[in-house]
């Protein structure tokens, strides 16, 4: 039943795209590790890190699209789930430092020694084990999404009110994580990581594996999403998106459908955040900034809302532009972002994927008239 579930949802395009993602995840790290530095095919370490980062952003974009494109909930707080996953991983990485910190305390991370913590706060226990931290990456964002979604969907909060609630959630977390007494490193967050699963986070091979893992995670998320959207559940979900009360009169519990996808999406975002943190080497409260969630929505809009491939393409294109512009013309980036938003809303309601489909349909029509 499981294989049937996973394969029926996968159209040919999605299958090819998953293979492409996996190919990137294998070829890019391989070129970094195996090619001599003088070769034109050599992928420098910064590029490897960049691709790894983009792959995590792409997973976040896919998570946003599951909720926005397929449930019709414009989430403006998804970066919070990403950041929570990142913090769980950050806590694990902090505890791996052990006595190698500046203060040499075997138990307490440096920032706790600095802030005169007498002992490890209770919620830090267990995070020295990977087997404990790894499920937390899914559970913490998942439970938050479950609680928020439960109340919001049951009370039938929809539209702009729901967007405001999600935005308020990430803003509240931003303020909370800024506080030193929360026990998550205040505004400095967590950094100076040493090892992950016993391997140095700085080593080329570790970075290569993390990049591959990010691609693998994205591929798995694409397969799962494709299967869900292609199933009868997906048909019902899209129907809930388009005419929720109609579905209720058909006997469907609309809120359960939304809740399942909301929680799944938060879990995906959490995993993406957890893979992101060891690659960039830091997690701090700025990841909760409301702007981050809004940018993630923009990636989806650019790539194509309500498609599975679109968010991935959007995340890569917008972030590539951002990396380039913030380096070359830093003062231009925010204007470019604003302009992009206007252009997409006015001229590309279905994003790049929609444009592509339109061009193909036009070519087919041309061929038909020519024949």
């Amino acid at each position, binding site marked *: *039943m*499981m294989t*049937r*579930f996973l394969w*029926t949802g996968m159209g040919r395009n999605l299958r090819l795209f998953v293979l492409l993602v996996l190919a990137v995840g294998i070829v890019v790290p391989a070129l970094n590790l195996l090619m001599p530095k003088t070769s034109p095919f050599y992928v420098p370490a910064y590029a490897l890190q960049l691709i790894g980062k983009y792959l995590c952003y792409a997973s976040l974009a896919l998570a946003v699209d599951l909720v926005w494109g397929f449930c019709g909930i414009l989430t403006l707080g998804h970066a919070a789930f990403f950041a929570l996953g990142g913090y769980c991983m950050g806590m694990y990485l902090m505890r791996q430092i052990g006595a190698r910190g500046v203060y040499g305390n075997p138990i307490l991370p440096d920032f706790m020694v600095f802030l005169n913590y007498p002992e490890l706060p209770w919620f830090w226990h267990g995070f020295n084990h990977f087997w404990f931290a790894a499920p937390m990456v899914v559970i913490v964002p998942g439970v938050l999404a479950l609680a928020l979604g439960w109340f919001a969907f049951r009370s039938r909060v929809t539209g702009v009110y729901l967007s405001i609630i999600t935005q308020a959630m990430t803003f509240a977390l931003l303020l909370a994580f800024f506080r030193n007494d929360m026990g998550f490193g205040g505004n400095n967050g967590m950094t100076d990581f040493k090892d992950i699963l016993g391997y140095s986070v700085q080593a080329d091979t570790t970075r290569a594996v993390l990049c591959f893992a990010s691609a693998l995670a994205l591929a798995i998320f694409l397969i799962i999403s494709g299967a*869900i959207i292609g*199933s*009868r*559940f997906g*048909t*019902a979900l*899209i*129907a809930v998106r*388009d*005419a929720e*009360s*109609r*579905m*209720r*009169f*058909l*006997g*469907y*519990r*609309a809120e*359960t*459908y939304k809740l*399942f996808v909301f929680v799944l999406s938060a879990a995906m975002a959490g995993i993406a955040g957890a893979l992101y943190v060891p690659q960039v080497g830091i997690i701090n409260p700025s990841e909760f900034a409301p702007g981050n969630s809004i940018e993630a929505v923009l990636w989806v809009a650019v790539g194509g809302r309500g498609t599975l491939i679109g968010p991935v393409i959007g995340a890569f294109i917008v972030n590539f532009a951002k990396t380039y512009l913030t380096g070359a013309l830093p003062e231009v980036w925010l204007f470019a972002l604003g302009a992009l938003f206007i252009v997409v809303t006015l001229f590309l309601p279905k994003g790049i994927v929609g444009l592509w489909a339109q061009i193909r349909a036009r070519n087919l029509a041309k061929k038909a008239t020519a024949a």
Partner: protein
Amino acid sequence: MTTAQPVSHQPTAHTTAHRTTSALLYLSGVTVSFDGFKALNNLSLLIEPGEMRAIIGPNGAGKTTMMDVITGKTRPDEGQVVFDGQADLTKLDEAHIATLGIGRKFQKPTVFESHTVRDNLLLALAGMRSWYKLLGAAPTKAENDRLAEILSIIRMEAQQHMLGARLSHGQKQWLEIGMLLAQNPKLMLVDEPVAGMTDVETETTAQVLREVNKSHSVVVVEHDMSFVRALGVKVTVLHEGSMLAEGSLDQVSADPRVVEVYLGR
């Protein structure tokens, strides 16, 4: 429930105790106020199993509001709605009421525009409502057979792969009736099915509904008198939220109060 039930045309002279046991639907003293304005005013109504009932009445008489109360969309301020002799619908939510066996066609057709005709029917098909089962289930042979049957009743086999958004107004109305059939409810509530239809489409719709009534109880709200005549069933006239008259179309249209309500405006 697929077996035909006899259509009854008994007058509504039963004792209250008898009503709650034999009637399929029983509204008693239902009142709904919107900011003091009574959209329904102490309305009582009784539908027998297997019956098809036409509800007529001028605009604003409370016909749609009555359906809102039955389906759980609107909570009445007073009164009871008993379905199948047991459940008090005023205490239940929409999804629960739908699973008890009440299906509804809205006044404004709302089909799922980004799904095909077939998927629309599949969604409506009785049975599968649990989200986790739907994750792994393919349509069964029985489900496919039932879809084929419904497509033929609503005369839409040729359009089954068309998206809901591309259907004409009349086709949407029929698809909605098909979706009601797919739910296989004990009771169908059909709100203004022929609004905006051509005469031919109206005639077809009356045929479809008579066919549907062979296996389902139906309450149909309509303005169009030629359509109500084509249905040939007992008529209830609503006016200002209460029942004005009840009987055959000829009887009620001879009633001077009914004439006044319709012509006095």
